[in-house]
């Protein structure tokens, strides 16, 4: 169920990227897609009723292994979020410069390159 919702979210983002004409909406589509993938990744490691994956001296190892959530997807998502932040900052920067040059956010009017 949750994975289906992730997929739906991903498709919403893809729809935004592919069909919208406003640059800001395209960027929002990209962010939504990225969030959907991040959610998907974090849910891969989720366990119902799981505990935080921190090993202490008094922890029972077998119980810990059975109950702890997978920490690797969390690390991956953290990295992916940081990368997404970098890309987003660059995208917004380029959008602002484009707006300064062309005076519009409509990509159908930003058409100097052709051929």
């Amino acid at each position, binding site marked *: 169920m949750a994975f289906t919702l992730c997929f739906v979210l991903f498709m919403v983002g893809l729809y935004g990227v592919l069909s919208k004409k406003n640059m800001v909406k395209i960027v929002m589509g990209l962010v939504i897609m990225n969030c959907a993938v991040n959610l998907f990744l974090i849910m891969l490691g989720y366990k119902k009723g799981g505990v935080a994956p921190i090993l202490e001296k008094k922890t029972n190892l077998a119980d810990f292994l059975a109950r702890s959530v997978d920490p690797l997807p969390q690390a991956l998502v*953290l*990295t992916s979020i*940081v*990368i997404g932040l*970098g890309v987003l900052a*660059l995208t917004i*920067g380029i959008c602002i*410069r484009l707006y300064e040059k062309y005076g519009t956010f409509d990509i159908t009017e930003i058409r100097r390159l052709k051929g």
Partner: protein
Amino acid sequence: MDKSEKPVGMTLIVQTVTRWLKGPIILYGIYIVFTGHLSPGGGFAGGVIIACAFVLITLAFGAKFALGRVGKLLASELDSLGALMFVTIALLGYVGGSFFRNFIQMANPAPPFRIFSAGTILLSNVAIGLKVGASLFMIFIILAVIRVVEDKDGKMKMIQKKQGGDN
């Protein structure tokens, strides 16, 4: 207020509160950075908090701060220094045997190094905190403060990028 004197930034209330709060916010950010190896937090989160403090100052007192000496120092020098420090830690590990090796932990910590209870992780967190704090502040400057930077013939306006892959 005198009409000839154009008010910079926000109202007096905001400015006063900011003056009181900027210290605790930065301190809290530093705390998060320095305990990142023991509790939730770390370089990225702490760096974001520090950057937020500077963003608050810029919002309250106007763009003069961001474009002044401190802002320039923060945005350009510290940004590179943080990343440089991170790579240097990795390279020190390389000299000590393996790239990114936790060289402090391995060498049976002598008294001055005992404070680094997780080896190089604390140092890496500090480096990441510097890098993230400085670059987020710089992104804020570039997106919000600097509008048009036309050189002589509008030759170039750089867009500074943030490097992914830390933490």
